């Protein structure tokens, strides 16, 4: 599904964020991308959905090299990749329903389809009762569920989550991880960048460890070491 070859990123100030990264992610896989802050996890995720460009190397999604994608085609790529952020990135002056529907609106879904899909995804994340709430009326965990709902509402084949439990308490973090596992079980490839040791060790999935821009470990059923 995702193939990364010799990926390098050197920032303008000369800092090497990624050094010769090679990775292969199969269809419907669940991967934990772990490592300390500044290891290059976010940079790598940003490159997968073309929010950042590599200095050298290539990323292939379904054998399509991302470097061949024209600027005008980037939105279409992003519609196939859901993204979840640590800071949720919800629109504060829109309700839960509007925040999720917004993603479908930009894809020209009909009003009836938007209503149906938003209801389904709210049911999946367990927040059907809160569709008319505004983000500031929700807890951190609920906000993250909405962020996940928005990311998967159009059933993208790939879901990237960058520190989705970074600002949540342990119990809520567990709920979020179970939700991501549930989404993975619905045939979605999931990559989660995290440094939450407890969750990684308990859920026993594939773990890719990054350190100073390099992959130093890749275990099929791994631990956070």
């Amino acid at each position, binding site marked *: 599904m995702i193939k990364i070859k010799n990926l390098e990123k050197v920032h303008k100030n000369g800092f090497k964020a990624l050094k010769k990264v090679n990775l292969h992610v199969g269809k419907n896989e669940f991967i934990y991308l772990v490592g300390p802050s500044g290891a290059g996890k976010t940079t790598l995720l940003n490159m997968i959905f073309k929010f950042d460009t590599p200095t050298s190397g290539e990323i292939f999604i379904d054998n399509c090299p991302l470097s061949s994608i024209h600027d005008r085609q980037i939105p279409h790529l992003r519609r196939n990749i859901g993204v979840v952020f640590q800071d949720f990135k919800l629109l504060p002056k829109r309700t839960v329903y509007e925040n999720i529907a917004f*993603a479908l609106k930009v894809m020209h879904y009909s009003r009836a389809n938007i209503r149906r899909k938003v209801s389904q995804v709210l049911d999946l994340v367990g927040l059907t009762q809160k569709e008319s709430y505004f983000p500031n009326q929700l807890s951190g965990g609920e906000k993250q569920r909405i962020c996940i709902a928005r990311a998967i509402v159009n059933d993208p084949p790939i879901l990237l989550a960058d520190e989705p439990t970074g600002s949540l308490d342990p119990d809520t973090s567990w709920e979020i991880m179970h939700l991501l596992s549930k989404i993975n079980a619905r045939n979605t490839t999931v990559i989660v960048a995290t440094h939450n040791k407890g969750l990684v060790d308990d859920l026993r999935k594939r773990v890719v460890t990054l350190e100073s821009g390099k992959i130093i470990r890749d275990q099929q059923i791994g631990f956070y070491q």
Partner: protein
Amino acid sequence: MIFSNIKFFIYEAIIGLNRSRLMFLTSIATIAVSLTVFGFFILVSLNLHSISNYMSSKFEILVTVQENLPQQDIKRLRAKLSRMPLVHSATFVDKDKAWAEFKKKYTHLELANLIDVNPLPHSITLQVVELNEVKGLVASLKKETPTIDDIIYSGDLSEKLIVFAKYSQIIGLCLVGFLLLATLLIIINTIRLTVLARIEEVTIMQLVGATNGLIRGPFLFEGMIIGLIGALTANLILYFGYQYITQVFFEFAPYFPIVSDKAIVFTVLLIVGASGPLIGLLGSNISISRSLKL
């Protein structure tokens, strides 16, 4: 899809404008003032042009003949005047006909009720070949033709007005250009502020796969809406303001050639009305391109 896009743009634009109401109202007020001044200068320019035309077409020397001068002598005098090298044409104006026309033209003055007898003399109107030669022509008329009672002409004033009108039009055009530029800058700045205020929203739109066109659309509509409302406000001020001004002129200076043709005034309002949304569109387009690098 185009229809759903437009619906999306309008909906998002209204949401955006509603969120920054104060900035929205300030922008409309500023644009309304700019476009009012813009429209006002077009009207002033048109009136100066009208005065200039009026002066040129009416630049005549009116020669009144001595009272009781026989018709034969008047005919001879007209023939003599028309042969003069600086005279383009000489037309006899019968005093009864002139009085009837005068009364017809200024009906609202109700002259017929005020004056019983015709106060006008027989006259000959001369159209001159060259405006600059008027003074010389008048001097030679006074010398050579004793049967002339009086010579009436606007002399220096007309020449000065024509020059004034010409320069005023140039200055007016420069001011109009300057005002349009100022209006454009106001819109660029307003949209820039709304873009910066919603930069996070734009990022989210990009992340969920919105195309650049879809991101730009609401901002372009916001610019157009601001421009349109500003232009409509300016048009209301211009329409009622100009109506009042023409009314005042008709009452107190009926001879003044003020432009009152409804078709011309509506054309000016149409230009102002169209300028608002067009400048809004252009301004927001420049602003988005600069702020978002889209």
